[in-house]
């Protein structure tokens, strides 16, 4: 176990012009579970591969447990890794696969056997130890890959989208199982995913990446509740955060959306008479069929019952919003409903830079 310190890491792939990681710095505390989250091509996998030593950075440094490993080969870093495509050795038995790292570390045979048994027990692979990977299902193969990664006493455990090749139900089950295993181990873990629900559910901290940079780093709830820019808000959450063009009046007390008015929170006093973007999550908008003060009128476009909620797509002054209503809420397209926003769930963004507005 060890902490990780990444500073000013730059990597450009040969032949490419854009930086895969652009001056990334990141501190990961000992025992932390950090998730790198982002759309494909954002540099999250490149960052992980540089941690593993499978890619070498152009500049910057990586240290694990205070030891500089920037240009060290993978086998000298004391790390372990779970790959997206499992990457189990198809020509060897499950037992050999799990014990591979220990065998490479020249551990005595009896100790290897003990550890392999322990890992197999933990991941419910006991009956399959003498099978070849080809005789296992995809989920079991991924279990082998996880077992192989946890038996070695690595400083850092790296996971590259380990659940993305599993089917939806299996993914959900294995996700909580994985979280428990990693929690019990207490190993510093870096986990790459493009699935925001995975990131939120697993991570102690989430680094949202975009175009080779970390757009926001924070706890899962912080990242969800207070996105630092429009990209993060739009990427995390299902449905993504709503963004509405609005304007602050000259006195700073009122927010104008089209022809309708909203109470402006005190934060906006510093942004008198300016055009801004209002960001709000679907579940933070209360809907009603009766007007109460401070509400905005909206026209229903689409009604999607989701079981636990009803997802409404509505039109407010020519802008489209997604809002969540309780399952008992009855409405139909073309009807007018009333939306109310609570001040502490509204987020505000600069129209030009897309960055979150902060009180001056």
């Amino acid at each position, binding site marked *: 176990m060890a902490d990780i310190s990444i500073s000013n890491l730059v990597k450009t792939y*040969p032949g490419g012009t854009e930086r895969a990681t652009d001056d990334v710095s990141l501190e990961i505390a000992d025992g932390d579970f950090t998730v790198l989250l982002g759309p494909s091509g954002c540099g999250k996998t490149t960052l992980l591969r540089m941690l*593993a*030593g499978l890619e070498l950075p152009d500049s910057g440094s990586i240290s694990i447990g205070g030891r500089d490993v920037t240009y060290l080969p*993978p*086998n000298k870093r004391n790390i*372990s890794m779970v790959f997206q495509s499992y*990457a*189990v*050795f198809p020509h060897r038995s499950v037992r050999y696969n799990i014990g591979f790292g220990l065998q490479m570390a020249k551990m005595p045979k009896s100790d290897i056997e003990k550890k392999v048994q322990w890992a197999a027990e933990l991941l419910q692979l006991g009956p399959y130890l003498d099978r070849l990977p080809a005789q296992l299902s995809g989920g079991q193969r991924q279990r082998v890959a996880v077992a192989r990664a946890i038996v*070695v006493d690595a400083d850092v455990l790296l996971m590259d989208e380990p659940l993305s090749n599993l089917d939806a139900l299996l993914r959900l089950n294995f996700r909580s199982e994985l979280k428990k295993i990693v929690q019990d181990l207490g190993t510093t873990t870096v986990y790459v995913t493009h699935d925001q629900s995975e990131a939120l559910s697993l991570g102690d901290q989430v680094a949202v990446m975009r175009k080779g940079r970390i757009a926001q780093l924070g706890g899962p709830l912080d990242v969800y509740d207070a996105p630092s820019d429009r990209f993060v808000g739009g990427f995390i959450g299902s449905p993504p955060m709503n963004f509405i063009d609005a304007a602050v009046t000259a006195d700073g007390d009122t927010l104008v959306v089209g022809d309708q008015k909203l109470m402006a929170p005190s934060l906006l006093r510093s942004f008198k008479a300016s055009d801004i973007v209002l960001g709000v999550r679907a579940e933070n908008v209360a809907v009603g069929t009766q007007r109460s003060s401070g509400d905005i009128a909206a026209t229903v476009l689409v009604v999607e019952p989701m079981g636990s909620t009803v997802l409404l797509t509505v039109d407010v002054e020519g802008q489209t919003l997604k809002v969540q209503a309780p399952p008992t809420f009855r409405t139909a397209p073309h009807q007018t409903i009333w939306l109310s926003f609570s001040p502490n769930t509204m987020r505000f963004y600069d129209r030009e830079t897309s960055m979150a507005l902060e009180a001056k």
Partner: protein
Amino acid sequence: MTETTVDTAPLKRQKRNRVLLQLSCIAISLFMLIPIYLISLAALSTRESLNRFPLSLLPTSFSFETLAAFLGSTGVFGALGNSLIVGVGTLLLSAVIGVPAGYALARFAFPGKEPYQLFLLFTRALPIVVLSVPLARLFLTVDIYDTTYGVILLHTALALPTTILISASVFLGVPQDVEEAARVFGCSPLGAFMRVVMPMALPGIAAASIFTFVMSWNEVLGASILTLDHRTLPAQVLTSLADSPLAYRFAGGFALVIPSIIFIALMRRYLTNMWGSTIR
């Protein structure tokens, strides 16, 4: 209620196509097998029965007499040994050079990769005679003319393009992340190659080596130009063909065919393995 009429024509067509497929498989197999059968028959018959008319198509007078005479004749036994030495030597040398080259082609992007792959095939575009005559001169000056080494060198040059291209495609079939997993879990680059990549690639490499061996075993022209006294079997048979009896020719043909067949039979398991694993 009216009964719906089912159009069974597509089903019939499917059945007919299956029969046609089977028939063409049989026809192709016969095309390959009949000459082998006739040669074997002739080689294993007595000398007199060959001259009989009409020729019996069933093995009526089985004997090793002809074959024994062929093997006993001067030079044949030595030539057989030479052929084996050259075949195995070519196989080893082309594997030592070609497999790493194939690995490089499969794993690394380097400038001129496409032209290089095309250029590889140019060796085969030159007629063997055009290659062999200058080689013979060269081998004379460096004093390896009329040795099995010289023939091994020529055959390796001829076999390398296929060895490289086949092993490149084999290595492409070994996922990169399996190799990376080996690296992460403590292997050096060479260790990862030996422990993980090579075992996975072996069936394909074995297939490549079959082609190499059979190519070397069958190659006549270059071998007869580059040797005088140390001929490989095909070269030996070819030179003595004109002034040898009919039985000798059949026995020679038989002796040439058999080792290739045995070799392919031994390697067949790996061949189907390779195709089973690359065609998913």
